[in-house]
Structure formats: structure tokens, C-alpha cells
């Protein structure tokens, strides 16, 4: 006999062996529950999973058991996730369960995970592909069932929040055979036509099976390829679908989806109100400014009573004018007077006039005689009378004695 092992030693060895196997670290197992026992004190669940031929012990610790979304019971077919190890005390290998789902749901969930991982690896969900929603969508495409609750919720919400947007409905089955393809085709129809600014795809709440169409690979690719932004609004808050992940924006419900699309209506209104106010404000302040400038100019005396200036000027003008007139007339009458004076003088001095009164002019050899001393007796002189001349001879000269003598 070679080395003798202890039981503990053996169990530890086998446990180490089991735990070192990569395949056994994370396995998914299908089976039926039997011998279910919940330890109230610790919160752990103990059970046996079996199929037609075999069984395996399973334990679910309280930390995992707390997250169960259903109440497991004997006879229930489930799918569990967990790791394989050995319970040393009993020398029993078993599965340590981290997640457990009823079979149908479990299968869907597995398919979901598989598809999610595949598409994620392709980059279908990458943030950098996400498109922004338009601020003021004119037309909103909706891909959903025309009879469902979703279209009603979306219509009501948009009516309340964003009545300017026109809704274009593309009817599609949202559950059952072929629903995924119909939904995908709906997205593609909008994308072909480019007739809407944003698309909401979704449906109301339902079971995992009912929402399954939104985990369709073809749909995910159609949403990813779509050049128009897509809002995915499927089921309730807690429901996550592949379509949600592929879409540009995920909304928790159809109503929330409509609100996201309509989200900018309030800002639209406030932007408009602000813009209107701002334009008026700017114009008012500009006018106020111009008015102030005007006031300053207006307060100048000239402008305050422009007529005053005119009358002032007029007065000046009047004064000048009358001065001018009086000077002129004075000048005129003086002129007249002067003329009269001169003409009177002239008149008086006219020799003809003098001759007319009986005087005569004596000349000797054309020289006017002013003194008797200029003449000798018997000189010939001429006398000019009013109407002719006399040739005379001087007979005698009598010199007048001075009166004072």
C-alpha cells in the first residue's frame, strides 16, 4: 500500500480538482426542482436538481436567493447559473447557484445574453454611434401596433406636450410570430422614405415572452443602420431589450419616449418668448437712447421756440429797414433842396435875367467894363441889351465919388 490519505485530505484534493476546472467555474444547468428546503434562519435555499436519470445537490446562498424574482417550488423546471464545488463535510459535490429562472424565461434570458454579447462585440451598441434627437421634430414616426396601448400613450402625450409634431404611424405586430421582422421593416420603411425627423419604436408592458420581439437581431441591426434617430420605448421601467440597447435613446415607457421627443417643446416656447421679449427690449432701449439725444438737442433755446428767433430777426430787420429808409429819404430831400438852391442861384445869376430887368452890359473890345477908369472919352464901347447891342461912343466920363467921402 502506498500513501494513506485522510478523508479530509481526499475531499480537499477533489475539491481543488473540481474548482480548478475552467468549465465548471461557470455553468448553466437545466433541471427540475425537488427536495426544496429553505433555511429560515440563514436564508439559504437547499434543493436537488434532477432530470429523468440523474440528480445533483444544489445550494443557493441568501445573498443570491434574495434576488429571486419568483418563488421556486418542487416540480418546477428551472435554469440555473452557478459553479461546481465539493461540500467537504459530506464528500458531496454540488452546484452553488447564483441565478435561477423558470425554464421558459431562463431560455429567453440565455438567448438574450447570447445576442447581446454578439451585437456588443460588433459595436452595435457603441455610444459613438448614438445620434442626438432633433430639437423641433416636424414629423415623428412611430413603429408599433395600431391597436396597442403604446400608440395611445404616445398620441396623448404628444398632444399635450408637443402638438406641432405630426405623427406618422407605421403599424407593426409587437408580439408573436414574425413581429421582430415587422418591427425591423417598420424602421427600414421610415429610413427609406426619410419622411420623419425621429422614430419611436415600442409597445406597452407585458411578460418577457410578450416583449421578446424587441430582442430580435434583425430589428437591432435595422435600428443600428437607421439614419434617423430612434427612441426605443418598450414595456416598463425594468424591461431592457436589445432594441433599447441598439437605439439612440432608450425610454422606459412609450409615454416617456413621447416626452423625450417632445422634451424641447417647453424650451421652444420659452426660447420664443425670450426672443420676442429681447427684441422688444432692445428696440425700446434704443428708442429711449435716441429720445434722450433728441431731448438734449430740443432743449436748445432756438429749437424750444423757433418763432422767437424769427421774430427777433424780423425786428432787427425792421429797424435796419426803417433806418435805411429814413437815411435814404433824408438824403433824397437834401438832394432836392440842394438842387433847388443851386437852380435858384443859377437863375439869379443868369445874365439874361439881369438884362431883362433893364440892366445892360458894357464891353470894350469884348472886355466887360466894370469901372469908368477903363474907358477914355470918345472910346467906342458896346452895350449889350436884352434884345441886341448898341455901338456907342463915350462922350464924357464922370467918376462917382465914394459915398463915404
Amino acid at each position, binding site marked *: 500500500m502506498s500513501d494513506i490519505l485522510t478523508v479530509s485530505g481526499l475531499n480537499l484534493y477533489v475539491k481543488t480538482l473540481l474548482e480548478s476546472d475552467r468549465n465548471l467555474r461557470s455553468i448553466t444547468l437545466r433541471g427540475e426542482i425537488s427536495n426544496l428546503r429553505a433555511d429560515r434562519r440563514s436564508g439559504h435555499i437547499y434543493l436537488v436538481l434532477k432530470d429523468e436519470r440523474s440528480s445533483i445537490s444544489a445550494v443557493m446562498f441568501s445573498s443570491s436567493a434574495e434576488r429571486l424574482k419568483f418563488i421556486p417550488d418542487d416540480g418546477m423546471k428551472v435554469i440555473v447559473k452557478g459553479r461546481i464545488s465539493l461540500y467537504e463535510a459530506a464528500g458531496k459535490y454540488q452546484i452553488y447557484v447564483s441565478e435561477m429562472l423558470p425554464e421558459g424565461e431562463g431560455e429567453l434570458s440565455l438567448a438574450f445574453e447570447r445576442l447581446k454579447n454578439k451585437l456588443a462585440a460588433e459595436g452595435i451598441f457603441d455610444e459613438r454611434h448614438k445620434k442626438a434627437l432633433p430639437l423641433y421634430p416636424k414629423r415623428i*414616426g412611430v413603429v408599433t401596433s395600431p391597436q396597442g396601448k403604446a400608440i395611445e400613450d404616445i398620441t396623448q402625450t404628444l398632444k399635450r406636450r408637443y402638438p*406641432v409634431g405630426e*405623427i406618422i404611424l407605421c403599424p407593426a405586430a409587437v408580439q408573436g410570430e414574425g413581429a421582430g421582422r415587422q418591427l425591423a421593416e417598420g424602421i427600414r420603411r421610415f429610413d427609406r422614405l426619410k*419622411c420623419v425627423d425621429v422614430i419611436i419604436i415600442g409597445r406597452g408592458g407585458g411578460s418577457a415572452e410578450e416583449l421578446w420581439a424587441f430582442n430580435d437581431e434583425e430589428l437591432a441591426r435595422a435600428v443600428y443602420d437607421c439614419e434617423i434617430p430612434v427612441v426605443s420605448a418598450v414595456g416598463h421601467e425594468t424591461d431592457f431589450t436589445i432594441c433599447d440597447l441598439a437605439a439612440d435613446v432608450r425610454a422606459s415607457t412609450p409615454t416617456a419616449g413621447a416626452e423625450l421627443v417632445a422634451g424641447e417643446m417647453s424650451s421652444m*416656447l420659452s426660447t420664443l418668448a425670450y426672443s420676442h421679449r429681447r427684441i422688444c427690449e*432692445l*428696440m425700446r432701449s*434704443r428708442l429711449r437712447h*435716441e429720445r434722450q439725444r433728441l431731448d438734449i438737442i430740443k432743449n436748445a433755446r432756438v429749437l424750444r421756440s423757433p418763432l422767437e428767433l424769427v421774430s427777433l430777426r424780423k425786428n432787427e430787420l425792421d429797424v435796419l429797414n426803417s433806418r435805411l429808409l429814413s437815411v435814404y429819404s433824408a438824403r433824397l430831400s437834401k438832394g432836392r433842396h440842394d438842387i433847388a438852391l443851386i437852380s435858384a442861384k443859377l437863375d439869379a445869376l443868369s445874365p439874361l435875367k439881369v438884362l431883362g430887368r433893364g440892366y445892360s452890359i458894357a464891353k470894350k473890345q469884348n472886355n466887360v467894363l466894370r469901372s469908368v477908369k477903363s474907358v477914355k472919352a470918345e472910346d467906342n464901347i458896346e452895350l449889350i441889351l436884352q434884345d441886341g447891342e448898341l455901338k456907342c461912343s463915350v462922350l464924357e466920363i464922370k467918376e462917382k465919388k465914394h459915398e463915404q467921402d
Partner: protein
Amino acid sequence: MSKTDYEHSMLRVQEIIEQLESSELPLEKAMKLFEEGTKLTAECYKTLDKAEQKIRDISELENSEEESND
């Protein structure tokens, strides 16, 4: 799809505000812009007021598309 009339109007309104904000603008120009701006905002208000939710089926659009392609 190109920008909606509403978006165009609002962009123009924004431009007008910016221009009005610069005080170098001659008064006459400012008044013209003011007139244009208030006219645009009034139209936008009208668009919002008049709006009533309309629903159409995509097939209507597809049909009109086919017609226009003919």
C-alpha cells in the same frame, strides 16, 4: 430632412437679436430688423397655437412618394 420653417425662423430671430445688440446699427436699420423680428416671432407663436396633433399612416406618404417618382 432639412430644418423646419420654425427652426429657420428661430435662427433668423437669433441673428436679429445679435444685430440689435450691437449699438452701431443705424436707427432705420434697427427698426427694420425689429419689424422683421417681431413678425417672425408672431408667426412662430401662430405655428404653435395653431398646431393640433395629426396622425397619418406611413402608407399615405409612401403612395405620395411613388407618385412624385413617376
